[in-house]
């Protein structure tokens, strides 16, 4: 029984499978990224509605222009000290990554993930928060810990999974946990923590506290169901949380269009869920700081959550297990239109008279030295797989608060 009125016999359907504009050997056409000139995008009032932010979800909030000047409505007051701390933390993060990559190649550990090219985001947001706030990071926000000046040696011991690893060797390298630094225990499972951040923020509201949370997810991982759950809950309960989406264009080998970014933005989703949302230049420390402060103030003023899509580029491989030259042009990062966050901040600081090329080089070499010293110390506590590692008995602790009988029996069976 035919029920349709449509007369024509249609042509065969075909599956659309999105592709990046270039594969190895070709040149990426970055015009797919909608950009706005620095200073061109409005800064709305804190109590803006989600609908009013719709234009902000396709434009791009930028503060630093090509000359290194801070321009436009988002170029708010920012203390020199904050800018210098940001520069320091970004340089330190990059140096730390570089050194740990080598350590992994030297087989001192099993695995490492760097955040090359994305340093401004974690650093800038962390500087816009308060003590007591809690960040729910992915594996690419080590910048938070470095901004918070957590012990490098301790971080390294975690990466080396050695006897001094604060997580007792239980976790994969870089899956840090630092409650005092407002850094939630990282999960290997993508996006699970996005909704947990919302729950944490709801708890703060339930208790009548003033703490806020930040949630972190990559472009690729937004496809998980928990991203949706987080947006729904954050909207429904006006949870005091900043919902960060770090769009570094890639998820291991897949381009952001495979995550649903083709002809739309991730920021647009937030606004549609009733959450005021921004799309921001993630390689512009000043834009990161300004947008994060705005969102943090909204949250702390009981105005609920803000979603921010950070446009950036994963300049390195996904992890030490990955080789991006297999799926994308090798020199892509150099052509990324938003440049390198450290270079851009450097230019601004120099213009502002706060910095010089010499200082830059000097701080870099000081940091290298500090990191080398720290690694030496960390290595003195052992390397992955060496005898100097967390004990086998540690494996049975903290499964429950108190060890149940069956685990006691199993530990005895292992003889530890």
């Amino acid at each position, binding site marked *: 029984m035919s029920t349709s009125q449509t007369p024509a016999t249609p042509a065969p359907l075909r599956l659309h499978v999105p592709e990046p504009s270039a594969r190895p050997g070709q040149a990426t056409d970055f015009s797919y990224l909608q950009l706005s000139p620095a200073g061109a995008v409005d800064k709305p009032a804190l109590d803006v509605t989600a609908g009013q932010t719709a234009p902000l979800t396709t434009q791009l909030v930028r503060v630093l222009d090509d000359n290194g000047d801070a321009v436009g409505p988002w170029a708010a007051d920012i203390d020199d000290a904050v800018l210098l701390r940001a520069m320091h933390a970004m340089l330190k993060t990059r140096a730390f990554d570089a050194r740990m990559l080598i350590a992994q190649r030297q087989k001192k550990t099993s695995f490492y993930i760097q955040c090359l090219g994305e340093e401004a985001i974690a650093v800038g947001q962390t500087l816009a928060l308060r003590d007591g706030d809690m960040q729910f990071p992915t594996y690419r926000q080590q910048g938070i810990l470095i901004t918070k000046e957590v012990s490098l040696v301790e971080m390294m011991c975690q990466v080396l999974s050695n006897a001094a690893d604060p997580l007792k060797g239980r976790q994969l390298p870089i899956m840090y946990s630092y409650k005092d630094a407002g850094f939630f225990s990282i999960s290997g*499972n993508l996006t699970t923590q996005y909704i947990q951040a919302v729950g944490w923020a709801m708890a703060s509201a339930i208790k009548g506290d003033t703490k806020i949370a930040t949630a972190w997810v990559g472009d690729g991982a937004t496809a998980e169901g928990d991203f949706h759950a987080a947006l*729904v809950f954050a909207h429904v309960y006006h949870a005091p949380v900043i919902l960060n989406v770090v769009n570094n264009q890639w998820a291991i080998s897949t381009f952001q269009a495979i995550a649903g970014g083709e002809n739309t933005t991730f920021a647009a989703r937030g606004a549609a869920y009733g959450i005021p949302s921004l799309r921001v230049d993630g390689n512009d420390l000043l834009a990161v700081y300004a947008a994060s402060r705005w969102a943090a103030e909204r949250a702390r003023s009981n105005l609920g959550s803000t979603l921010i899509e950070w446009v950036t580029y994963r300049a390195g491989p996904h992890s030490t297990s990955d080789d991006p030259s297999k799926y994308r042009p090798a020199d892509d990062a150099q052509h990324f239109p938003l440049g390198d966050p450290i270079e851009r901040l450097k230019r601004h600081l120099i213009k502002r008279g706060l910095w010089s090329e010499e200082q830059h080089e000097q701080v870099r070499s000081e940091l290298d030295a500090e990191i080398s010293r720290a690694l030496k110390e960390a290595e003195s506590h052992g390397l992955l797989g060496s005898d100097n590692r967390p004990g086998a008995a540690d494996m049975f602790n903290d499964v429950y608060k108190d060890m149940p009988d069956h685990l006691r029996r199993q530990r005895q069976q292992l003889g530890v």
Partner: protein
Amino acid sequence: MSETELQSTGSAPMTMIQALRSAMDVMLERDDNVVIFGEDVGYFGGVFRCTDGLQAKYGKQRVFDAPISESGIAGAAIGMAAYGLRPVAEIQFADYIYPAYDQIVSEAARLRYRSNGMFTSPLVFRTPCGGGIYGGQTHSQSPEAIFAHVAGLRTVMPSNPYDAKGLLIASIENDDPVIFLEPKRLYNGPFDGHHDRPVVAWSKHADNLVPEGYYSVPLDKAAIVREGQAVTILTYGTTVWVAQAAAEDAGIDAEVIDLRSLWPLDLETIVASVKKTGRCIVLHEATRTCGFGAELVALVQEHCFYHLEAPVERVTGWDTPYPHAQEWDYFPGPARVIDAMHRVLED
């Protein structure tokens, strides 16, 4: 922890629903960090009415409705627990807990471990389980095995109002994540598996007295609900009543153990009983293969091998989805338990 720490002298007859509600009431009152949320649990008070009146009493900040997203409910609960609250989240039916399975397994169960105790998730997921109400394949399941398999979780299932309240209070107070399965067939009255005979409501039942105030039932102790010498029946939830009915009907001197806490398990009580009787039956509603009964059989034969006079028998739901029209063919009722006892005793 003693079996009961009574702080209130008054007791009242309660259904299992009332007892569960009373547990939440007591804990909302005692501990500001306790919050209740889930689908339809707020204004309406839950599709089984377990949270009826609690929002009116404690306000919307403590008792509230959630979007229909079990993964979201679980994830939000974990975040709240990490903050320091003690969330008690309802999953409307155990059959709908699967979307939350990732959050429960990958997150709630492991948070303490992977953060070396820095972050914890002291929370309770309450959820009605089991068949017997013509709920069909999506309102009848008993998924305890998939939680017992996961290191870091506690899995609990009461069989009567007293235990329901005491175990729920203990679960809320416990610092580990707890999967709290409520046999919905027992909500309004015990049920002995004879679906063709009238059921005694809790209000008319001998075992209905529940203290009105605070007390708890420990999470590591099974209960011997019927003493016997001939055969040990290990069970929990609805089938605790089936086992007792079967023993009575058949006039067999069976010892019936209500496990109450499935995992961690009170192995001692089990082993002592099986060593005494030399025969054992494991009884549950869930599908047989890789059900919790398999673990019980494995443990019994590991710990009581030389005392066993016959193979341990499993009486369970069949390895099919829970059918609608054939509900009572699926349900492991007294007749099947009696057959199993005869087989075990013959050997």
